[in-house]
């Protein structure tokens, strides 16, 4: 069941709201990640508002499309999207990472309805996704399984073990979205200690997925229409699984976080929060000014 068709402008607005909610939740929790959630949020909004066949009020509906956030450290982006989509009240985001919360630091499928897999150890969510898609084939189910991985996460050997098996079984009901924001947590050093190299050079990841027999498309991961189009096409693919390489910016939307590895996981100061909120178009009353 699709959400009421929302215009692109509306969804862009929603994504901006989501970015503010993400920052707020991390500030309240005094912990969590920002760079990865901010690079992924436009893709998640496109997925949950335009692509996935889901029922927020019936989150265990057996025929729903599945989504697994394999880069589980970006959990707050997924929680925010689920809340905006009506899975649970937005206010619950303030319990992020708190003791006893359903919104654990890394996704826990036993606690929060709407999570199709527990993740947090990189690489593992993807292989579970291969299993979900294989199970859907065996059970003759028609839904599609989407998995989001990070570009750093593609360092893990298990990604390529899963990619191989998915191609062997021609899992055309499986779509991997690579959030290629060109940074991992620490990564390889460039000329200086603050200059960190991207996990992969240009086109390297796209070529790798191709070499493993996957159909590959590349999109601007911050263009909601482009993402929607690519994911919709991917779910209709046949013969082999599909990788959508989404070119993104880590920390997208907040100028001083963009492309800076130090914002992988860090809690902003009061001044930084205010500046971020202004840049994200918060109404003046919310900027704390």
């Amino acid at each position, binding site marked *: 069941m699709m959400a009421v068709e929302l215009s692109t402008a509306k969804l862009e607005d929603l994504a901006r709201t989501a970015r503010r909610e993400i920052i707020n939740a991390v500030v309240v*929790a*005094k*912990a*969590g990640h920002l760079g990865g959630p901010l690079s992924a949020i436009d893709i998640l909004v496109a997925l949950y508002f335009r692509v996935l066949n889901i029922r927020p009020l019936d989150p265990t509906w057996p025929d729903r499309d599945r989504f697994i956030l394999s880069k*589980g450290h970006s959990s707050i982006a997924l929680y925010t999207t689920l809340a905006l989509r009506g899975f649970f009240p937005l206010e619950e985001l303030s319990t992020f*990472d*708190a*003791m*006893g*919360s359903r919104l*654990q*630091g*890394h996704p*826990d499928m036993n606690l929060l309805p709407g999570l199709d897999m*527990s*993740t*947090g*150890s*990189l*690489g593992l969510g993807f292989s579970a996704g291969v299993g979900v898609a294989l199970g859907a084939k065996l059970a003759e189910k028609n839904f599609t399984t989407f998995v989001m991985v990070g570009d*750093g*996460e593609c*360092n*893990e*050997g298990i990604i390529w073990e899963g990619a191989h098996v998915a191609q062997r079984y021609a899992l055309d009901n499986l779509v991997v979205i690579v959030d290629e924001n060109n940074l*991992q*947590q*620490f*990564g*390889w*050093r460039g000329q200086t*200690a603050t200059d960190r190299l991207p*996990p992969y050079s240009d086109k390297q990841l796209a070529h790798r997925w191709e070499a493993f027999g996957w159909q590959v498309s590349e999109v601007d991961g911050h263009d909601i229409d482009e993402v929607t189009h690519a994911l919709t096409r991917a779910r209709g693919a046949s013969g082999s699984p599909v990788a959508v390489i989404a070119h993104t910016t880590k920390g997208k939307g907040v100028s001083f976080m963009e492309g800076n*590895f*130090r914002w*992988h996981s860090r809690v902003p100061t009061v001044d930084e929060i205010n500046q971020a909120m202004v840049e994200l178009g918060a109404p003046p009353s919310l900027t704390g000014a």
Partner: protein
Amino acid sequence: MLLREGKALRVAFGETLAELGNTDRRVVVVDGDLGSSTGADIFEAAHPDRFLQMGIAEQNMLGVAAGLATIGFVPFVSTFACFAVARALDQIRVLIAQPKLNVKIAGGYAGLLAGKTGKTHLMFDDVSIMRALANMTVIAPADEIETRRAIEVITATDGPVYLRITREPSPKLFDDDYVFHLGVASRLRDGRDVTLISTGVQTTRVYESADLLAKEGIDALVLHVPTIKPIDEAAIVEAARETGFVITVEEHTILGGLGGAVAEILGDQYPVPVKRLGIRDMFGESGPDDALLEKHRLSPARIAEDVRLLLARRVR
């Protein structure tokens, strides 16, 4: 007596390796994309050419470390304890423990206090798993000083080691002139009523609980066991002999860790009642460090309460 403030073990870890690297060119650090969390970035800043980034690929990283050791390097593998021990266990077992290769595995963010990361990251079965491996030395230092000394000793000693490193600043238990001997426990306090045995940073909280107990007239012997394998059997048996009642306390599961090791030794050599305090057969969760310590009854006040209760039950 309140202990003095000290640095986080992870900071001592990075600083000590950076210093050792000045004189010992065999020392290399092998990172799994977590240098900015584990303290390994301190080494990278000092010795960028001997800092080897393996990316987010722990299984390969442990294998690479095994290979480096055969060339004469002393690789310190650095990642979170969960990803070293749980993700790369086959590599540790077959490529490091079985051939007794000179790899030092530093498990960062070990225990309960890992800054709100939750179930996947909180690792408190690492000691049980690693001590079950033949040939593996297992060390859990209590403070920054012991971390420094332990790293110096294991760098100079051939063979595989698992070193438990924690995230949060922790109090200083030892003075600068402290000497660390591999496999030797240190008695921090004599006592007649009960023997408290602990390891790692948890010892600092046990030490403080002994002061609380003393105020109530309970005289606790405190034994710190930094090397969990090979363990100081003689010191444990002697401490049990003196009080006749042993309580182990660990920031770790009570299944197979320090408490398990102590129960095995005393069961074999000097059977006295042994009670194990620690985390009870469950996984971790998100939460503030203090709240997690309270929940698992590992703060000084909760330890003192439980010791008092166990002693009272025993007398009856």
